[in-house]
């Protein structure tokens, strides 16, 4: 990946450049926009608050340019701001999105950076983890394990979602790399 040198350089650094911060904020803003789009989509399983995870496109993009620590920041900021912007702050939907966001981040963080796994593979694993994490949070919130009935359906839906976010993130990374944004940061 074109950005790997950049990533390694950043991983060692303590502070971020203004450009990095700007880029990261743009990523947060974009993922926020995707969260808003997602909020308008009707729920695809009868568990309110359980979302497709389109914002993972940006998380994946961030993995393409930044080390894990900064990506984590993007995810946390997105989850926090999405709650505030969408008016779900501290509601069940807010916590469910945290369940999905954090679990998928950690799974993607494990798979990312491996030669054998492409961004689409990371995306697939992330989508499944995102759905599983959300369900886990619903189960915790309701202290009821019956909701795991939907796990297989969520896994099935994770496949098209993961492919979609994966290929989307891939083209976003390519476009950004081609436009020279990577080189000049």
């Amino acid at each position, binding site marked *: 990946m074109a950005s790997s040198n950049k990533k390694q350089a950043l991983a060692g650094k303590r502070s971020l450049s203004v450009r990095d911060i700007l880029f990261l904020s743009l990523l947060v803003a974009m993922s926020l926009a995707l969260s808003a789009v997602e909020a308008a989509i009707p729920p695809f399983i009868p568990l*309110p*608050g359980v979302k497709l995870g389109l914002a993972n496109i940006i998380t994946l993009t961030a993995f393409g340019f930044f080390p894990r620590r900064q990506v984590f920041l993007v995810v946390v900021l997105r989850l926090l701001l999405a709650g505030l912007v969408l008016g779900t702050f501290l509601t069940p939907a807010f916590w469910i999105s945290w369940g999905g966001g954090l679990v998928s981040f950690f799974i993607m963080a494990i798979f990312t950076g491996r030669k054998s796994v492409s961004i689409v593979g990371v995306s697939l694993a992330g989508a499944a983890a995102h759905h599983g994490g959300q369900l886990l949070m*619903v189960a915790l919130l*309701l202290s*009821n394990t019956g909701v795991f*009935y939907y796990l*297989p359906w969520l*896994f*099935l839906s994770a496949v098209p979602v993961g492919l979609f976010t994966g290929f989307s993130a891939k083209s976003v990374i390519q476009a950004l790399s081609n436009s020279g944004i990577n080189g000049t940061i």
Partner: protein
Amino acid sequence: MGLGKTDKQILAVILAAALALLAFQYFSGHRSQELVLEISRPGAERLRMPVSSLPQGEQGRWHVEGAAGGVYLSYWPDQGVHVDRATCPDQACVKMGFINKAGQSIVCVPNEIIIRLIALEDPAGQGEEELDGVLK
């Protein structure tokens, strides 16, 4: 640049997990036990009613109180249990449609209501006549 070998393995694992879980549900839900409707809210006792004793069809307008107002249920013998109306903004539980197998549930997160079908051993006491209620 399509999917690499490991990518395909990840995909296969997800699909396999989904199918295995579905198969498990399919086979575990097909025993000849009686279906019981369970309604619960966190921190409260559960309500259990044999499905056969539920008011049916159009007669069955049934309101269940919830944290955000509640839901309206109905039971249709051919199709199952259904949420007709809900006070939650997203109406997710209404869009769910019917549940009719053990293990299936309708969850209304804003209302904190879980409507679930479970299979109980011998719940209605194998009686020929239906029960109108159970003293707990």
